[in-house]
């Protein structure tokens, strides 16, 4: 034991080698807050530092163990002010720690003015390895009691930093730091009030019980250092979600006055009735949840279904009316031929859809909501995304899906991106508005397909193509060829720009968009395929018709050009009249 007397909150306490409790004995609204510090070699890791009320004491405690500059990591399990609000104060006092948390949590933490070097545990395999090799594992504890909540398990000491789980209200006179059997009751009631439901909490507690835990360090209440399993067992069985139950709510508003018999008798009666009602309620609640799940979820993908999607949209608009901020909606359609055509039977198709859904789940930003809105349609709501971010996200999803091998089939998708902010004002009723949005998405996806698919279209993208300007790009490192084609097409009334390598053509594209590109396959710096690949990355350029020509035309290059959606691959020597006809047809198509 480094400092402090056992079982009091008067000073710093070493719970395990290098693991310290660094809190204060202040109790606010019946809650003690427990910040922890891990010293690992040269590195200090601060866990849930607490509120501004405790800041001075926690800071003093921490500094007694290690200077603030040496604290390199700060774990915030969720975003409650009682554990996170002092983080900016620490930062101002000179702590330059990287913040380890869930991405979803970070989006709220920013409102405290917390910012800096983020380490999103959900993007780092829920693990963090200190320079000395100590492994911290993070356990997602969603909806306990925030969607991005996590807990931390320190493998080397067997300490579970459980955040709100295993916490409790504290009595006025009980300042002890370690839990005994009397802790069970307050712990249970705390969970009943704060945790949403047995169904949500149970699996997490089950998971905890598989860990080689030596102690549980919750953020409220007491440190559990012995008889761990008895505490775990309580939570495994516990029904919670008190405030979801109106009867119990009613009881708490009546309150418990004094030892007056008639009241007590009535209370006991009520209590019996209440228990009965409660179990009934519990059953109907389970049934309701199941029903709701069945009604709002799509069986195949596990995504919410279209029904729910409509409701979700109008809810969002209601909410947005307060904040005036909403976000982006991505509509996504799978290519019915390319991805589904070669599968045997409906089961295979469902399996593929489920895989696609899982793939999307891994790829979309953490705060997005995903929906299956039709047979081969998906939608994603991206809160607070600007249109540009939404387009970028859609392009990324499109490219990732197109390129992955994980699905066992090559899947092409088209995306429509809509900035919901456009629909915030205006006199339409909620249902009209939802219909408008869905129509708009459908229309955009349709036109994406008309363009050949594998595209991203957005509300603001002006459909004016570069057609007004009959500019043609010719790329070949054979200067003779380029010059001849220049002369030829200028004579036919086009404007021609010639390039001798792919890279400079790519640069010029940013300046001015041609209506078609004629490129030799082997050109320096960026060959024809690389150029086409680069063009495909952006929907704007992907639609530019591309003619490839080369002396080299073999199985491999034909396959690759087919893969890249190049329809015209002429082998030199080609007929000049053929090339002219192809280019003219491009010009006609984009003129219409």
């Amino acid at each position: 034991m480094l400092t402090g007397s056992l079982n009091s909150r008067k000073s710093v306490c070493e719970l395990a080698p290098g693991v310290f409790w660094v809190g204060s004995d202040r109790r606010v609204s019946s809650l003690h807050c427990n910040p922890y510090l891990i010293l690992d070699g040269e590195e200090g890791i601060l866990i849930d530092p607490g509120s501004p009320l405790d800041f001075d004491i926690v800071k003093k405690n921490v500094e007694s163990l290690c200077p603030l500059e040496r604290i390199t990591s700060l774990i915030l399990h969720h975003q409650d002010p009682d554990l996170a609000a002092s983080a900016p104060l620490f930062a101002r006092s000179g702590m330059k720690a990287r913040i380890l948390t869930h991405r979803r949590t970070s989006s709220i933490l920013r409102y405290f003015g917390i910012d800096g070097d983020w380490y999103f545990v959900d993007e780092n395999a829920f693990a963090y390895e200190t320079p000395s090799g100590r492994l911290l594992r993070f356990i997602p504890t969603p909806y306990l009691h925030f969607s991005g909540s996590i807990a931390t398990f320190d493998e080397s000491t067997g300490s579970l930093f459980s955040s709100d789980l295993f916490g409790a209200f504290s009595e006025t006179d009980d300042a002890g730091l370690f839990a005994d059997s009397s802790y069970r009751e307050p712990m249970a009631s705390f969970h009943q009030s704060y945790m949403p439901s047995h169904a949500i909490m149970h699996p997490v507690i089950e998971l905890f019980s598989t860990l080689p835990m030596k102690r549980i360090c919750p953020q409220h209440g007491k440190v559990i250092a012995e008889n761990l399993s008895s505490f775990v067992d309580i939570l495994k069985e516990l029904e919670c979600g008190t405030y979801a139950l109106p009867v119990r709510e009613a009881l708490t508003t009546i309150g418990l006055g004094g030892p007056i018999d008639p009241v007590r008798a009535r209370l006991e009666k009520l209590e019996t009735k209440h228990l009965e009602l409660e179990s009934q309620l519990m059953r109907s609640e389970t049934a309701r949840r199941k029903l709701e799940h069945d009604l709002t979820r799509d069986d195949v993908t596990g995504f919410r279904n279209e029904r729910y999607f409509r409701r979700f949209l109008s809810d969002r608009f209601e909410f947005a009316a307060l904040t005036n901020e909403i976000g982006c909606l991505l509509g996504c359609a799978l290519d019915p031929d390319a991805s589904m055509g070669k599968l045997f039977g409906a089961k295979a198709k469902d399996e593929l859809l489920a895989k696609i859904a899982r793939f999307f789940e891994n790829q979309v930003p953490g705060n997005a909501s995903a929906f299956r809105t039709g047979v081969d349609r998906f939608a994603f709501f991206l809160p607070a995304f600007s249109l540009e971010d939404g387009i970028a996200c859609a392009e990324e999803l499109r490219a990732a899906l197109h390129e992955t091998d994980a699905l066992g089939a090559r899947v092409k998708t088209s995306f429509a991106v809509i900035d919901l902010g456009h629909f915030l004002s205006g006199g339409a009723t909620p249902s009209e508005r939802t219909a408008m949005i869905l129509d708009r998405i459908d229309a955009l996806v349709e036109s994406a397909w008309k363009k050949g698919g594998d595209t991203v279209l957005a509300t603001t993208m002006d459909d004016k193509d570069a057609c007004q300007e009959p500019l043609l790009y010719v790329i070949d490192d054979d200067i003779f060829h380029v010059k001849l084609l220049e002369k030829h097409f200028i004579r036919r009334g086009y404007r021609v720009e010639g390039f001798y390598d792919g890279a400079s053509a790519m640069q010029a594209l940013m300046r001015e968009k041609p209506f078609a590109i004629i490129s030799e396959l082997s050109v320096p710096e960026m060959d024809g395929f690389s150029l086409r690949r680069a063009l495909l990355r952006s929907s704007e350029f992907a639609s530019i018709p591309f003619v490839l020509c080369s002396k080299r035309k073999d199985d491999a290059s034909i396959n690759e050009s087919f893969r890249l959606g190049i329809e015209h691959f002429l082998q030199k020597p080609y007929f000049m009249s053929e090339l002219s006809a192809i280019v003219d047809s491009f010009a006609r198509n984009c003129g219409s």
Partner: protein
Amino acid sequence: MNNPVLIAAGTVLLLANAIAIAFLASSKKRGKAVYARRGRLAAELDRIETEGDWAALEAMEPRDIFFALSRTGEMFRFSSALTEIARRKIGSSSELLHSLSRGARSASRASRGLAAFNLRFFPDEIALPLASKWIVSEKTLRVRLLIADSLEGRIGTEQLPAFLSGLADAPFRHISNMATILRRSSELIVDHYRSRPPESMGERLFLVFIARRQPDEFCRDFLRAEALSGPEEIAPHAARILSKVYPEVLDSESFLSHRNPSVRERAIASLARTETPDAAARILSLMADPDSRDAAVSALRAITQSRPRLLDMALDRFFESKDEGERNSLAELLSSRLDTLLFDILGPRKKSILELVRVLVSRGRIYGILSFLNRNRDLLVEKEILEPLRDGAAADPALAEKMAATLSPSISARLGLAAPAKGKTEGRKPQTKWDKPLLVALLVLIVAALGFWLHSNIRFAADPAAGATLFLREYMNAFSWYSVAINSVYALILGFSILEMRKQLALRASRPSSMLFKEKILPSISIIVPAYREEKTIGDSIRALLNSQYPDFEVIAVNDGSPDGTMAALVAEFGLERFDLRYDEAIATEPVRALYRNPRIPGLTVIDKENGGKADSLNAGINIASGEYVCGIDADSLLEPEALLRAMTQAFESDEELVAVGGNILPVNGCSVSSGHLRNIALPKNGLARFQSIEYIRSFLAGRLGWAYAKSLLIISGAFGIFGRKRVLEIGGYLTRKSRLGRDTVGEDMELVVRLSRHMREKRIPHKVGYSFDANCWTEVPEDMRTLVRQRNRWHRGLIEILTLHKNMIFNPSYGRIGLVAFPYFITFEAIGPFLETFGWIVTLILGILGLLDSGSALFLFCASVLYGILISVASLAVAENQVLYYKPQETAVLILYAIFENFGFRQYMSAIRVSAYFSYLFAKGGWGKMERKGFAGVAASTPTRDMPLNASNRERGPRQ
């Protein structure tokens, strides 16, 4: 010698120099004018076609039409209306007709080739009768192909028998080439054989190839019969074509259990082409037969690409099968689709997939799994896969090490693996220790001869001092004669070079590159790029190589255990992933750590291996290469995109087997380079590098090209050389300690050529070692004296090593010109010469200091060594600038100045280095002398100065006339 003769000789030399310079100046202007005229005429033809202005065409000179067509034909064809008129006009010109018939009768192959090429510009009534008479009597295969190529699609029934007449006893490649060229006439050909079935093997093989293009019953039955009961030379080809065109024919027991394994393989593969579950089930059932297993695996691999459901069937079978061999094969198949399977590990097939993972781990085939894990973000999936990996790691520490080295740190931590130990990074130095007594004896002999000479002078002179002076004077005189001799040899070789260059130019003029790009006309090449500490440049180099203009090639990069980030740079640049491949390790090399590929870049393979030197890396590349030829390239060198094509056309030109072909190495210093692509040629800024520029130009023009003409070429630079893979494997690859020859050398490139030539001579196979005059490779040359000295020291030691290693070839008539001419040349002028030269300059210096130098001797030495030497350099430069290089006029002038200056110090110093290399070889100081790389970025900083892109202009210089 008296002074007037010397003065006259000097004047002649000066004059010759002046003429060479004048020629140099004029050739530049000529090139530009020809270029402009072609462009103008081609554009005019294009205008005529677009506007239908036939009157203008009628008004054009036949010569001009001919001239324009011969250039544009490489890029595009004109409409038949224009072509008809153009041909008629050309056919009406008696001058053009005359030159055509003269060419067809010419004794020179090149002229006949050109005439054969030009046939295409003449109207049918002239071209067809001429061709059908000509092709029957033509002996040269390449000219026959050219005649056929010129008239493909125009041949009628009457001419056909003539075109088919020579096939009976033609070599395989010619038959296959002819079929490729005549494919547009396949209907005619099939009709021809319908009435008169082919008899000879050659014709049967030809019809097999042609039948591919002609879908009818006759062809199908013919192919079936040949595949079923044809001889060994024909059946596999017939089966291959059946599997492409009529896969259903092969779907029968007689093919599936055919005696010939490659027919069997085709039958299985064609089953796969129907891509039905039923076919897959049948192929799966074939797995039970060990003989068909490999073919079944590759067939199924093809199906599962497009029918992912079939994976489940394979997985089920894998899980049920009891046969170990079958399970192995299935594991092989399934491992090629690991990404799909592992992503699904939480699904209903979990048990089977886990079982598969276990089998793969126990066989050490873990890279696919590890690469999946590194990309995976799903913890539950990871948890499942880690379990079998953990067991595998526990069972086999070596496997655990591999896992730790490949997996990301967080995953390997979760797997409970220690961080990987840093591999050993010491570069090993090649050791040399062979017969030195011979070299000592040679040295003693030289010294003894000089000593005897001195001694006899002193004995017969009045006093020792006078005797010594006389000896010095006589030696200086002899040295001057030596200079005359060596420069005359150079002049002779330069003459050969010019002849060789003209020959190559003439052959090229008659070579439609559109034909070269047709299927299998040119052999396939594997480009092997050994890389040691090439972190900065490797990405750009490989990217540029992948962009080569060649019909059929692959790139194999070999990381030779670099201690820097070379491997990481490659992985990042090309998104590489490890993969498992079984291949035949024909040549022993240092252990290969891993192979990498990116499925999106099919033409690239990367080998990561333990350090073993450049030759060892090349050997590792040769093992895995699939091309008919292998091309060794230094990672820091820049290959012009057309270089492979230019070099490999020699394989097409030559009726003998081409075993090796080399190209020019030129200094890249000073040129502007971006992304591994040469933008502009410019002279190096550094003086030392400029000296080397003139040296390099001289060495290929007054050297290798001429030696190739004389069929005695022994040096192909390691920076860029192409070798027949089959032959290289036969002789056991490059010389390394690991290879079966058990020795290292520092001159592995020359050694390989010597051994190849020797091997072919001993096997008495007609062969050719070629050198292409304009297949250019640009490489960084040392800019500081220390590195240069080390490099030259190494080169010379390599030369001496090879001479000693192959000493029994010297003066050995059974090795022909190489034994009788090339080896003696190397001994006299390259091994002993530097001693004579260095000693000669010392003697001159002593005489000068003592004031004993008379004007006659001095003038003689000046003419023989300096003026003659300059003439060789300037003439080489003139020839090079005419066809190969494109320096600006002022740069050429600077080069001429350097060609003069190098005679006053630089050349002497280089000789002295060679002498010291001789001694350092004797005292066995090893090592490579690695030069400090600046990376291309440093070079690229210079600004582009020319408006015309290099390649375009260079391409323009391959004249067609």
